[in-house]
C-alpha cells in the first residue's frame, strides 16, 4: 500500500480564532509562544509509521502498517471496533511497543534508538524525551484525582519541563480559560462533570506544548448533552493553532469539520484514505461505505 499523501490539501491553519467576542483567549493566544508556530516547516513528516506490525498473541492487530502525518495536519482515524485505532495511539504513547517496523516522531525513533548505526530498543529516558512532543487526551479523561484543576494542568510543566511555577500557573490559567473553566480552577476532578473533566484534560495535554495531540474517542464516555462543549473546544484548537492532530472519533460531523485527511481502518490495515469530502461523500471501498452507514 502506498503511503497516503496529503499534498492535495490546502493548509487549514491560517484561519483566525473563532472565539472573538466571548472575551476568551483564542487557542493560539492561550498556547502562547510554545505553540507550534507558523514558522515551522509545513509538509514535513512529523509522524511516520514504517511497516509497523503489532500482535497480541495470535491476533495481528496492525499489519505491516505504513502511514505518515505531516506537521500541522489533522488526521482522523475511523474504522470498526477492534480495527487497531487505539493501538496506533498507544504505540505513539510508548505504552506498547511494535513487534516489527519503526515509528518516528519529528525524525526521532520511538521505542528504538540508534547506537553505533544500529537500531536497538530504546531506554525509558529516550522514550520520555521523544514523547514530550506528543500530548494525549483519553476517552476516560484520567485526570489526577489528588490534584485540583489548576495543579492537574501545572504539574507536568513544572516537574517534567522544569517550568517556573508562576509561569506554569499563568499559562495554565490561560488554557483553563480557553476551555471555559476559569470558575472551577480550585476544584477537584470529582467535583466536575465528565465534560468539564475532559476539557481540563485537554488543557493539561496542551500545557506540555506538544507538537501533536492524540485524541482517542474523547467524547464517547460523555453524556450526549456534554459532547458539544468538548468538541467546540477542539474545533477552536484545530482551527486557530498549528498543532498536529491524530484523532479517533465516531463524531463524523466533527471529523469532517477538522480533518485534512481521513484514514479508514479495517483489521489493522488502511483500506482507504482521502479528504473528508471524498471519504464521507463518495468512498471507493465497499467496507468504508458499509461502516459509514452503520455509524450514521
Amino acid at each position, binding site marked *: 500500500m502506498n503511503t497516503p499523501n496529503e499534498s492535495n490539501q490546502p493548509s487549514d491553519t491560517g484561519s483566525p480564532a473563532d472565539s472573538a467576542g466571548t472575551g476568551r483567549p483564542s487557542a493560539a493566544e492561550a498556547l502562547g509562544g510554545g505553540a507550534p508556530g507558523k514558522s515551522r516547516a509545513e509538509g514535513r513528516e512529523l509522524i511516520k509509521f514504517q511497516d509497523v506490525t503489532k500482535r497480541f498473541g495470535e491476533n495481528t492487530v496492525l499489519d505491516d502498517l505504513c502511514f505518515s502525518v505531516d506537521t500541522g495536519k489533522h488526521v482522523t482515524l475511523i474504522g470498526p471496533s477492534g480495527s487497531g485505532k487505539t493501538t496506533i495511539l498507544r504505540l505513539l504513547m510508548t505504552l506498547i511497543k511494535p513487534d516489527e517496523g519503526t515509528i518516528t516522531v519529528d525524525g526521532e525513533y520511538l521505542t528504538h534508538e540508534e547506537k553505533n548505526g544500529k537500531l536497538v530498543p530504546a531506554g525509558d529516558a529516550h522514550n520520555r524525551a521523544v514523547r514530550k512532543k506528543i500530548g494525549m487526551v483519553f476517552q476516560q479523561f*484520567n485526570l*489526577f484525582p489528588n490534584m485540583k484543576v489548576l495543579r492537574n494542568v501545572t504539574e507536568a510543566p513544572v516537574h517534567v519541563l522544569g517550568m517556573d511555577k508562576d509561569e506554569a500557573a499563568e499559562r495554565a490559567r490561560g488554557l483553563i480559560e480557553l476551555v471555559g473553566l476559569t470558575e472551577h480552577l480550585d476544584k477537584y476532578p*470529582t467535583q466536575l462533570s465528565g465534560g468539564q473533566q475532559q476539557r481540563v484534560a485537554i488543557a493539561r495535554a496542551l500545557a506540555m506544548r506538544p507538537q501533536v495531540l492524540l485524541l482517542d474517542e474523547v467524547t464517547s464516555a460523555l453524556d450526549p448533552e456534554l459532547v458539544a462543549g468538548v468538541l467546540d473546544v477542539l474545533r477552536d484548537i484545530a482551527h486557530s493553532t498549528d498543532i498536529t492532530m491524530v484523532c479517533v472519533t465516531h463524531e463524523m460531523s466533527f471529523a469532517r469539520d477538522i480533518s485534512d485527511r481521513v484514514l479508514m481502518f479495517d483489521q489493522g490495515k488502511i483500506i482507504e484514505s482521502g479528504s473528508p469530502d471524498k471519504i464521507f461523500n463518495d468512498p471507493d471501498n465497499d467496507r468504508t461505505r458499509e461502516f459509514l452507514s452503520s455509524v450514521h
Partner: protein
Amino acid sequence: MSWGLFENWILPGLWVTVQATVFSALLALVVSFVVGTLRTSRLWIVRFLSGAYFEIFRGASALVVIFWFAYAFPLLFGWQLVPLWAGVLALALTYGAYGSEIVRGSLAAVPEAQREAGIALSFTPMQRLRRIEIPQAWPEMVPPFNNLAIELLKGTSLISVIAVADLAFAGNVIRLSTNESAPVYTLLLVLYFLLAFSITRGMRVVERHAKRGVGKLPEKKSRSGQGDVAPAGGSTNGGGA
C-alpha cells in the same frame, strides 16, 4: 495498690509504652513505604529481595526478633543497643513487613489509567510514584494502618521481656511486690484500651484529611460535591480546601 507504686511504675511505664509505640510506628511506616514500593518495582531482583524481606519478617516471631536484637546482635556486631531501641528496631522491622503489604496492595489498586496518564505526560517512574500513585493510594492505606498501629501498640508489651520498663513490665513488678493482680491488670487493660482508642481517633483525623486530598469530602458534606454533574457556580459544595 498505692499511689507510690502508680507514680513510680505505672506512669513511667505508660510513657515508655507511648514512646515505644510512636518510635516503632514511625520507623515501621518508613519500612512499609520503602519495602512496599520496592515490591512494585519493574526489576525482578528488587521485587525478589523486598518480597523475601516481607516473607522472612512475616514468618518471624516478633518476640524472637526482639531477643535477637537484644542478645544476638551485640555478640555478632560487638555493639550493645539500648534495650528500648533494640525493641523499637525489632518491632519496626516486623510490623513494617506487614505494613509493606498494605502499601503494595494500595499501590496496586491505583487504576492503570493513572499510570498511563502519568506516562503520557512524561513523568519519570519516581515522579509517578511520588506525585500520582502514592497520594492516591494513601487514603486507602489509612484504615489498615490504623489496625496495624493498634497491633503494634499491643505488641510493645513484648519488649518488657528484655527489661524495658514499659506498662506491662510495671504491671508485673506491682503484681510481684503486692500480689494484687486483679486491680493492676484491670488498670492495664483500661490503659491499653485508652491508648488504642486515641490511636483510632487520631487516625480518623488523618483519614478525613487524606480523603479530602483526593476530592472526597467528609461524609456530611459530600452529597453535593460528588455527583456526576457539578453544581453551577460551585456555591453548594464545601470547597474541599
